[in-house]
């Protein structure tokens, strides 16, 4: 070709080299912090005896999803334990939970900002659109380039993806609040902060909780893919089984992922519905 190649790769390499050499200490600090949080979550999960864990989860499932879900959770998790996948599953769960916590902690303030400030909304919407269109594989590249192959980049990549639903849904929830309600708050003399914390956030709670649910699901699915860059857990198990062509092992690990995903999804959805109901908030955007 006559036209020279645009040196995206070289420029990118230079930028990354600059980042890794100049920002090494904050980056390693970030990685260490992420790893610490993940280790903490994992330690908490492993602190519980598997049976206690299963019992608690089954009760939660019963409370939020009814008897059928409770049965599914009980049998599913007993099967995971029986297959000797317990520790691996807990690793995956810990990473997904860590990413979700980080995403919600970052995403909800972004959503609030988007709802409160026009400029931020105009600035953030295309970024979120872009992040959402990006195939998931691509998230791994920058994370692995900056942080190398480890648990921290896997969680970082997952968080980048899972931050989208809380941000979007929080913004949606706040923007859907009736103007009259906000006006009533203002006329009662609410400050802007009071308005946010005592009127808007409580009313947007169903959407925010849906955001948490979606974030968790996205995180779970991404954590599995992130096995490629060193996230241990069920994803790694699947990857190994693909590599050694041990289909049975892969499928069983896949089923474990499915059990985990469905249990978490249904329980958290039930929790959203229950809270929404008990607060008497109409779940407007919840479809």
């Amino acid at each position: 070709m006559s036209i020279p190649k645009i040196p995206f790769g070289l420029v990118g390499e230079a930028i990354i080299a600059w980042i890794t050499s100049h920002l090494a200490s904050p980056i390693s600090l970030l990685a260490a912090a992420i790893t610490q949080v993940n280790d903490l979550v994992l330690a908490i999960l492993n602190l519980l005896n598997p049976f206690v864990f299963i019992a608690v989860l089954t009760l939660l499932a019963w409370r939020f999803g009814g008897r059928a879900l409770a049965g599914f959770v009980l049998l599913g998790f007993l099967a995971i334990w029986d297959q000797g996948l317990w520790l691996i599953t807990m690793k995956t769960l810990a990473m997904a939970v860590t990413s979700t916590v980080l995403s919600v902690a970052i995403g909800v303030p972004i959503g609030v900002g988007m709802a409160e400030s026009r400029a931020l909304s105009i600035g953030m919407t295309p970024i979120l659109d872009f992040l959402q269109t990006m195939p998931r594989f691509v998230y791994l590249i920058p994370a692995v380039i900056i942080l190398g192959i480890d648990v921290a980049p896997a969680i970082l990549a997952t968080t980048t993806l899972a931050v989208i639903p809380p941000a979007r849904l929080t913004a949606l929830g706040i923007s859907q609040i009736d103007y009259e309600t906000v006006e009533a708050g203002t006329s009662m003399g609410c400050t802007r902060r009071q308005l946010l914390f005592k009127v808007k956030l409580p009313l947007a709670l169903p959407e925010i909780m849906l955001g948490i649910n979606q974030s968790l699901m996205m995180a779970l699915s991404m954590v599995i893919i992130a096995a490629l860059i060193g996230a241990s857990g069920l994803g790694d198990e699947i990857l190994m089984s693909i590599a050694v062509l041990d289909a049975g092992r892969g499928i069983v690990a896949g089923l474990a992922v499915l059990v985990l995903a469905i249990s978490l999804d249904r329980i958290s959805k039930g929790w959203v519905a229950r809270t929404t109901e008990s607060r008497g908030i109409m779940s407007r955007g919840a479809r």
Partner: protein
Amino acid sequence: MSDPVVPLVPIVNAVITWAQHHLDVVFSPLKHLLEAVDTLLRSELSSLPPLLLIALACGSLLIRRQWKTGIAVAVAAAVILNLGLWRAALDTLSLVGIAAGIALVVGIPLGITMVESRVAHAIIEPILDYMQSTPAFVYLIPSILFFGIGAVPGVIATAAFSLPPVARSVALGLAQVPFAAIEAAVACGATRLQVLWKVKVPLSRSYIFAGINQCIMMALSMVVVCALIGARGLGVEVVTALTQMNLAKGIESGIAVVLLAFVLDRLCRPARSELSERSVMVQLKRPQ
């Protein structure tokens, strides 16, 4: 840890062996067919000059009077060409096309059936639920079992992965058609089929298009992952870059995937006002 009480792994392996022996009659022709289609599509696409394809993509948007988008798409495609990833992008495109095609052919009738029949709804709905809760990675395994390694298992896994949004959005779209419109048609003597084709489907066009768009985007995202099981295309570039820790290559192939996603998204997005479309998208995100 002691041996599992239920020997799940051996059982699964036995089932697979059985299936591979007995169902090969079905899978083997399917595999050959899909391979042939893929080869044909790839050779057709790559025989066309890149600039012609870019012009076609750009032109189709310009005709719809989306000037800015048209130019952006042309630039994006040109950058892929410039990066030397054109062939890989076409390989990916071919796989996306076949997989999305299968997903649409299966998904649209599925969605219609879901709305028209209560029983079908009760059966299909939970299955779609399970499918959407399943992480992308998991789709690869059963697919490899029956189709081995290569492009075909990738296509099948991708089609399965991108099926639920199509079925969901078609069902959602048909269900939201105002009852008054249906009643009016019935009062005018329309048969059930006529109501479906001439009232319900046109009135839910925006939902169906949104579903097609989502299907294609999900297919693209999955096809890239399918590089792990031997599908060609941009995914291979990403995987090799990841495994070799080749920064430049990783960045370039990542950019190419994002650009391809951008091009496909814009090409398959119906020309309608941003706002109403977005509200449809938001609803699709939350199937209940």
